[in-house]
């Protein structure tokens, strides 16, 4: 069969032990084109790509037609498959931290694909590797040839992965969420690089992502998946301006919207003076202890009752460390006043008693709930400790009320965390904090592990709770869209220093520093307004 398409799936279905995961998907990629496969987690987008290339475990059943150029992929032998993967098809995965082998140097890992597919070895392989590293715009390629993966940053590792993927001049590049684990400013660079390489090599690209805004900027055509079913396919502009399916419309609308309700009065709850965090570095034998690493440089801020202070920055900017310092979970210098009491001098039992008043919700909804306890235990644990005088029925009643307040179904108290979706788990984490009736809630990237539509729901929930209970939030995020929907004021951190600070609208609307400008540019805000 001859056609101008590079890669084609026809009525492609995947089942796991009889459970259909992908249902009759048909897509087509032409040379030099980027097709985006979009959907929320669990929609079957990664599975489709893996299944098309025969990379699924044994209990998966694949049916339907799949073609790469003019070879029928169903008829390939094991050996032909091996030649195809990494040869004519290149892969870039999501997690740059784990997709490189930590025990081999960068040069060796790229060299391996060259040796396997092109038979290059020794000097020839090394020269080609250097060339590839230059192509993916890594600085100092000669040094990086002998670097270990741990010496590289996330963005650099992803570049190495891309170098490996294009090493054998593939006709098709499959990029599975290639930028999800990276900072927003780095994301842009990686995507630009991918686009450049694609047009330079005339490759087709299958770009798998959950982020519609990336699609809008970086793809030619888009295919929207929902529970393994194709919702609609078409040119990007068409899908975004006139979405045909209901689901696509909700996805596009899922941007967190609204603003924080204006404050009625200012009544300071939390105040930090010259708060800083240092981590001492290990001391070598017979040498002076090196100067400590300053994670957070001395900074001051205040937070009123009922107010949300957004703390924004990329990874490594010290925003989580700052939160841990306020929570007294890491050692810090400087003064913290909470409701006109010194918090930083409390110790032992007094500190533990005081903790009831400031609670935290963490980023990872999967890691922050103990998998061995039912939800009722998780939520009631703090209450039982801080209020031992409550009877069993009173505790249960409080648990029920709190779970209702965060919008969880009635029957969930006796169930275990693994039975819930990410968004629901985050609600459980919020319930665990709320049941203690805190005055301050520290939210450490509470939405970043969730799908957009779930983020929107959670943001609304948090805003409602703030209204109802007069809670103060310290809201940490790298996602400016969420911050804009939540915060009254914003503090931008870079390398542990405050870069910019002020009212949310002003900072995000008219950034004063280049760094904030870059963050705003890289995030979705400009696309939305444009």
């Amino acid at each position: 069969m001859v056609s101008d398409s590079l890669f084609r799936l026809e009525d492609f279905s995947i089942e796991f032990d009889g459970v259909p995961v992908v249902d009759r998907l048909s897509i087509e990629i032409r040379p030099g084109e980027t097709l985006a496969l979009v959907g929320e987690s669990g929609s079957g987008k990664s599975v489709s790509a893996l299944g098309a290339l025969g990379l699924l475990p044994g209990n998966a059943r694949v049916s339907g037609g799949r073609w790469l150029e003019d070879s029928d992929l169903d008829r390939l032998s094991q050996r032909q498959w091996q030649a195809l993967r990494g040869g004519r098809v290149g892969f870039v995965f999501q997690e740059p931290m784990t997709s490189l082998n930590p025990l081999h140097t960068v040069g060796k890992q790229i060299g391996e694909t060259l040796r396997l597919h092109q038979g290059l070895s020794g000097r020839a392989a090394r020269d080609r590797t250097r060339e590839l590293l230059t192509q993916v715009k890594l600085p100092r390629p000669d040094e990086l040839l002998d670097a270990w993966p741990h010496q590289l940053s996330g963005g650099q590792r992803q570049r190495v992965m891309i170098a490996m993927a294009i090493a054998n001049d593939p006709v098709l590049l499959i990029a599975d969420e290639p930028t999800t684990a990276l900072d927003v400013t780095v994301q842009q660079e990686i995507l630009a690089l991918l686009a450049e390489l694609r047009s330079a090599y005339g490759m087709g690209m299958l770009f798998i992502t959950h982020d519609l805004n990336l699609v809008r900027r970086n793809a030619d055509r888009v295919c929207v998946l929902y529970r393994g079913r194709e919702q609609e396919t078409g040119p990007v502009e068409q899908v975004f301006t006139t979405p045909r399916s209901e689901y696509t419309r909700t996805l596009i609308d899922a941007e967190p919207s609204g603003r924080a309700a204006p404050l009625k009065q200012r009544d300071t709850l939390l105040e930090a003076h010259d708060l800083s965090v240092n981590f001492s570095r290990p001391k070598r034998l017979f040498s002076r202890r090196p100067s400590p690493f300053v994670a957070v440089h001395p900074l001051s801020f205040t937070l009123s009752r009922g107010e949300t202070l957004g703390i924004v920055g990329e990874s490594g900017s010290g925003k989580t460390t700052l939160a841990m310092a306020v929570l007294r979970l890491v050692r810090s210098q400087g003064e913290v006043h909470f409701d006109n009491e010194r918090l930083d001098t409390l110790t032992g039992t007094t500190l533990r008693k005081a903790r009831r008043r400031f609670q935290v919700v963490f980023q990872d909804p999967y890691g922050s709930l103990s998998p061995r306890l039912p939800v009722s235990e998780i939520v009631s644990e703090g209450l039982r400790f801080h209020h031992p005088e409550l009877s069993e029925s009173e505790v249960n009643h409080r648990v029920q009320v709190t779970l209702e307040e965060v919008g969880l179904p009635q029957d969930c108290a006796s169930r275990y965390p693994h039975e819930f979706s990410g968004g629901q788990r985050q609600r459980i984490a919020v319930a665990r904090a709320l049941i203690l009736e805190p005055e301050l809630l520290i939210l450490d990237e509470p939405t970043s592990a969730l799908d957009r539509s779930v983020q929107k729901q959670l943001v609304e929930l948090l805003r409602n709770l703030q209204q109802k209970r007069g809670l103060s939030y310290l809201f940490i995020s790298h996602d400016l869209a969420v911050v804009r929907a939540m915060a009254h004021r914003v503090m931008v951190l870079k390398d542990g220093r405050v870069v910019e600070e002020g009212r949310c609208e002003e900072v995000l609307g008219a950034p004063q520093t280049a760094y904030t400008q870059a963050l705003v540019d890289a995030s979705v805000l400009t696309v939305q307004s444009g």
Partner: protein
Amino acid sequence: MPRLSLSPIARRRLAVFRHNRRAWVSLWLFLVLFGISLLAELIANDKPLVMRYDGQWYAPLLVDYPDMEFGGFLPTRADYHDPFTQQQIAEHGWALWPVIPFSYQTLDMQMRRPSPSPPDSRHWLGTDDQGRDVLARVIYGFRLSVFFALVLTAGSLLLGVVFGGIQGYFGGKTDLIGQRLTEIWSGLPVLFLLIILASFVQPNLWWLLGIMLLFSWLGLVDVVRAEFLRARNLEYVRAAKAMGLPSRLIMWRHVLPNAMVATLTFIPFLFTGAITTLTALDFLGFGLPPGSPSLGELVAQGKNNLQAPWLGITAFVSLSVMLSLLVFIGEGLRDAFDPRHIQFAPSASPTAPTATRMTPNGQ
């Protein structure tokens, strides 16, 4: 009444364990054997279970009766194997004997052959070189070994988890000092200590247990410490800290269940290790006091009496069956706790994206 409720993880592990036929069968076999050996007094004893004599009921198993009760003239404990006593009992009533009418230290005085005598209908597995019934000794020896291993494992578990947990949870200086101390402690030679001990006290079961316990927990410390080190930075542990829970509660409720996976996997090896050590000490003669029903002593007898192969064969078979069963159980436990062996439950359908569900209140 709180009903027995297992967390879903525990239920899945149990299912994996049951799915492993070999481990499951081994577990039952071992439990049956241990159950039998727990009833050793009812199965192998040199006293009748119940007796009727002159219209009176007697329970020699529970009460020591003097010889005079049964027509003898000695005020000492009756010897029910004595032909005279037996004749008296046959004349005045009856006696219900255990299946094996010998205890582990009964010397059979009525043997027709020199000891060690080969297996026959009287001694199913023959007698050892002092004329004691081998089967009875194996049953009692099995129980003693398992009991020893159980107590030793429980003790090591307690010590290992406490020390490892404290080191791992607090980390820093506590960990550093604790690690160095355990390293020094583990440098002490256990075997020599036992041999030295044997020269100035008569070592009994409790002495041996005590000395072994001083050292056997060291292996667990590293495992538990590593697990605690890992778990103390988990987000739900930090959340518990932020909630103001005291350290002991966090360790008990949140960290320990994590560490138990590695620890439980370790238990079967502690168990078999304890049995092997006890056997080895008995074999060398530094173990339990003479006369105790010990499998190690049986091994030694087998070695000394090569002309009586039933001694060596019995010792070999009983030890190898016991250890193999334990190893199979351990293997099953390890697999059950290995996350790679737990397949995704078929009921876990892919989570539905929530976007469509939110449309009504989203607008």
